[in-house]
């Protein structure tokens, strides 16, 4: 028979042994540096959230509250959406080697031992009954199985629940206290917890499938039958009247997923890789969804099946299979429930024992004279001993509470009561992470206020309902004062007890935290920690930290301290790895600088908590007290340094840009210099050419008096021409230089362009007639008037006309001049029937000293400056000068000058 007592005991023991093996394997792999904690394992380990309270209790809740059991799963799902908040928590904890939620809060508010102790007390008071609930769940499930089997295993005097507590204590001690350093993760434990998560999910889905498809004819059948009963139909409708409860429950469970000590342990302390969070964000909600799918079907199935019988709905998952003879399935469910309970108890007690050891026992021990007397002793063994004792004590407390409470209300409702207790950590935690002004005084006041309200409105009334204390303060208010009724404070009635407590406790908590924070001044340590927590992502380097410590210490003393608390072997190992990170071969040669002191303190914090670590380091180092103002100055300076470095970066960019511009400007200058050089070289050439003829011919005339008269006349003619050419050249060069430098003098007035053009044509008339070139004009009688310099315009016209006559063939040559108004401009064209220009020449001829080739004469008479000068002049008046031409099709030089803006 499967359900014999011996077999059940054997099965449970075998399962625990399997967990041992999994944990052992995880630890072995961790020691070998091959961690098995993957993103999936991490996400599954979060499901330690699903305890036996939910494994058995969800069905129970569903039988009375319908879908409301879902709220405690919706909250965590929503909370995980704020992955950034959790990530910041993880990062802060890693940097500061945080060991627990108490350590986190204490460290943030100036490494306060008072605050650490307070958080620990709240956590222990809030969570120990929850542990009792797990013992009850195991005990109840055993009772169901044994009722079936007949309890023939244990003698009447041996309490199975006590036995379970002892086994769990031993199990947890073995799991959780292998190493001292709490930030040294318990990878074996995490692996075992993830394994248990899989087992409980598997068991729950198995029983769900059995009930839905084995007992009933599927979901449709189940819901149809339930719908037939008005009492059951109520369960799967959403009751809007309970919306307040829903909101409170979602908020409560959302906070619990982070702030329950075991959840903080798993999510934050045991996190090995921040990227694992990304997986958990969807995998954990998926897990919650899967484990909840069959809650309502099982609840409905149980109610339908056991109609009229007094069967506890919390045990439906066991009693339904048993009622149908599925003993194997019942045993699987038992193992699933055992998984849920042991997972919770192990992680919770480890987390609580760390807090009790570091934040309650250590501060007291460090002050005691007994410890002073044992100065030289290695204390690591003592610390482990304290933790082991704390684990045993917490489980003992849980057992005592279970014994005392029994079936009383105080136990059944404790799950949510625990949630409400740890929700009190939220203001101090979130405020500490995002609000630098939050102070220790504010955190203490908020926690005390919230905790007091929680005690008065939730825990004590639950005691009263169990008839342990008088219920007067609930019924009539404290001392008969009406508005002090415990569950209708200030007359706020109509809410359920959880919503009521949450509203008032968080109101008191947040109010006191904010008001007291704003009215208190942090001390130096607090201000520093506030900065380091809130700006954790910016304070990556150690520089600021190092600057915030001044004093002197000896390496020997600090190492002695580490050896005392970590044990000599581990201390040396840590020292060696620190030395290696600083590139120092031998740690004995290090100096006790600020950085080293920080390292030592962080190592100690990992073992005994940040508050105690601070006290210990202060006891061996001669520290200079930095005043608050000084700390703020340094932090300010650090902020400024960041601002400066950003500014520097900007400046550097600007500098690079400026350098680039300078280089470009330099290149331009060099190019200009080269052009000037070329220009001078060209000018020199242009000047030397006529000079060559003049000198050669004059020398010959001078040297040879017998030269024939005709030669003399010819040479003198050439000399005169070349001298004229030289004069013209010099004048034009000077003109060009004046135009280019902007020093030219302009006499601007109203000029009749038609008149200017006619005068220029008249002036050059003889030249055209000499070469027999036709000159025709198409000019308005009274030409358009523009604002310009009359002489300069004449200069342009003469240049264009003399160019034209130069390039057209004598006899057949023809030059046409047109003046017209086009839009807002006067357009003047000088068209010839000469050889024309190539596209390239059309541009080149406007450059200095670049005369058009392909001329009819061998060498065009001209300086090569006429067109560049003309273009400068026209552009000065706001116009353009260009040429339109094709080889063989003549050239058409065109310039425009804008008409003055009409002032109509």
């Amino acid at each position: 028979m499967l359900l014999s007592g011996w077999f059940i005991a054997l099965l449970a023991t075998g399962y625990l042994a399997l967990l041992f093996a999994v944990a052992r394997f995880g630890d072995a792999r961790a020691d070998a540096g091959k961690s098995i904690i993957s993103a999936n394992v991490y996400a599954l380990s979060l499901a330690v959230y699903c305890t036996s309270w939910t494994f058995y209790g969800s069905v129970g809740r569903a039988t009375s509250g319908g879908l409301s059991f879902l709220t405690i799963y919706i909250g965590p799902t929503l909370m995980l959406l704020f992955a950034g908040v959790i990530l910041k928590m993880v990062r802060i904890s890693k940097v500061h080697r945080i060991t627990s939620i108490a350590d986190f809060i204490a460290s943030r508010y100036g490494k306060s031992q008072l605050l650490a102790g307070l958080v620990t007390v709240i956590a222990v008071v809030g969570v120990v009954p929850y542990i009792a609930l797990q013992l009850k769940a195991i005990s109840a499930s055993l009772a169901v199985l044994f009722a079936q089997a007949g309890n023939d295993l244990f003698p009447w005097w041996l309490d199975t629940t006590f036995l379970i507590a002892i086994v769990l204590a031993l199990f947890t001690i073995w799991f959780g206290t292998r190493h001292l350093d709490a930030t040294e993760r318990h990878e074996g434990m995490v692996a075992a917890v993830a394994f248990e998560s899989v087992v409980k999910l598997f068991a729950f889905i198995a029983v769900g499938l059995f009930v839905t498809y084995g007992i009933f004819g599927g979901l449709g059948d189940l819901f149809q039958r339930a719908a037939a009963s008005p009492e059951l139909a109520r369960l799967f409708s959403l009751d809007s009247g309970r919306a307040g409860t829903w909101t409170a429950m979602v908020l409560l469970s959302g906070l619990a997923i982070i702030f329950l000590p075991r959840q903080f342990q798993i999510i934050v302390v045991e996190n090995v890789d921040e990227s694992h969070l990304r997986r958990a964000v969807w995998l954990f909600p998926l897990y919650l969804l899967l484990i909840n799918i069959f809650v309502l079907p099982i609840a409905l199935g149980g109610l339908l099946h056991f109609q009229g019988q007094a069967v506890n709905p919390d045990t439906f998952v066991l009693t339904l299979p048993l009622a149908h003879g599925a003993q194997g399935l019942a045993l699987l469910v038992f193992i699933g429930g055992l998984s849920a309970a042991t997972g919770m108890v192990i992680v919770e007690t480890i987390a609580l024992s760390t807090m009790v050891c570091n934040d309650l026992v250590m501060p007291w021990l460090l002050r005691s004279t007994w410890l002073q007397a044992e100065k030289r002793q290695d204390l690591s063994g003592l610390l482990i001993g304290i933790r082991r004792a704390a684990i045993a004590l917490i489980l003992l407390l849980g057992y005592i509470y279970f014994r005392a409470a029994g079936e009383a209300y105080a136990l059944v409702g404790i799950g949510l009561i625990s949630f409400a207790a740890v929700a009190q950590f939220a203001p101090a935690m979130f405020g500490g992470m995002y609000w630098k002004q939050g102070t220790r005084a504010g955190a203490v006041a908020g926690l005390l206020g919230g905790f007091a309200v929680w005690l008065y409105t939730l825990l004590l009334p639950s005691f009263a309902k169990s008839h342990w204390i008088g219920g007067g303060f609930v019924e009539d208010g404290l001392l008969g004062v009406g508005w002090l009724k415990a569950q209708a404070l200030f007359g706020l009635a109509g809410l359920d007890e959880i919503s009521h407590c949450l509203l008032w406790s968080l109101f008191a908590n947040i109010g006191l935290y904010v008001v007291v924070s704003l009215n208190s001044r942090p001390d130096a340590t607090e201000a520093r920690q506030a900065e380091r927590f809130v700006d954790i992502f910016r304070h990556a380097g150690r520089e600021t930290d190092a600057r915030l410590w001044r004093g002197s210490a000896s390496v020997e003393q600090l190492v002695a301290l580490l050896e005392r608390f970590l044990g000599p072997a581990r201390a040396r190992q840590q020292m060696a790895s620190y030395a290696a990170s600083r590139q120092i071969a031998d740690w004995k040669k290090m100096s006790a600088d600020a950085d080293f002191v920080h390292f030592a303190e962080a190592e100690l914090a990992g073992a005994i908590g940040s508050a105690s670590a601070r006290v210990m380091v202060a006891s061996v180092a001669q520290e200079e007290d930095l005043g608050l103002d000084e700390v703020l100055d340094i932090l300010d300076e650090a902020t400024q340094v960041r601002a400066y470095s950003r500014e520097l970066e900007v400046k550097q960019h600007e500098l690079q840009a400026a350098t680039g511009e300078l280089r470009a400007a330099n290149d331009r200058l060099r190019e200009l210099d080269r052009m000037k050089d070329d220009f001078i070289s060209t000018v020199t050439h242009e000047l030397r050419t006529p000079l060559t003829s003049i000198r050669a011919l004059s020398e010959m005339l001078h040297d040879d008096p017998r030269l024939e008269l005709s030669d003399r006349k010819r040479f003198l003619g050439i000399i005169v021409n070349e001298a004229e050419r030289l004069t013209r050249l010099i004048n034009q060069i000077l003109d060009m230089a004046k135009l280019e430098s902007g020093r030219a003098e302009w006499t601007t007035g109203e000029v009749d362009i038609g008149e200017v053009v006619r005068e220029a044509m008249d002036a050059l008339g003889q030249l055209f007639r000499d070469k027999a070139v036709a000159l025709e004009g198409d000019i308005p009688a009274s030409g358009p008037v523009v604002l310009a310099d009359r002489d300069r315009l004449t200069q342009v016209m003469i240049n264009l006309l003399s160019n034209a006559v130069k390039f057209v063939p004598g006899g057949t040559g023809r030059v046409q001049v047109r003046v017209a108004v086009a839009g807002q401009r006067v357009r003047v064209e000088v068209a010839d029937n000469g050889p024309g220009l190539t596209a390239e020449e059309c541009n080149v001829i406007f450059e200095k000293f670049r005369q058009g080739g392909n001329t009819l004469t061998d060498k065009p008479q001209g300086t090569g400056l006429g067109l560049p000068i003309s273009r400068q002049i026209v552009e000065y008046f706001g116009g353009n000068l260009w040429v339109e031409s094709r080889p063989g099709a003549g050239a058409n030089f065109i310039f425009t000058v804008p008409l003055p803006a009409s002032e109509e």
Partner: protein
Amino acid sequence: MGKKILIVDDEPNIIISLEFLMKKEGFEIAVAGDGDEALAKVASFAPDLVLLDVMMPKKSGYEVCEALRADPARAGLLIVMLTAKGRDTEVAKGLAIGADAYVTKPFSTKELVAKVKGMLGVA
């Protein structure tokens, strides 16, 4: 038999003065107005010396000089570069590509005559 000189320049007035100057000294003269014509005249006229202007249309004096020096049949031809650009780099360039002498414009007629006579070995 008198020595033959080819005068190459794109400035007609310079050609006039050089031609007159050299004829008076008894040389046989031919003239060319650009680089292409110069190469043609060297072939047809077979001068002993070329007075070669640098800045000319079509083909510069440098190009003409290079072409002449590349022709082994003209190995004995003397080349005097004439230029209005007096920069050292240009003098160096002219001599580097094989000119025998380099004269800067405006030049002294007496010196030019003396230089040409000296190069041709005419007393």
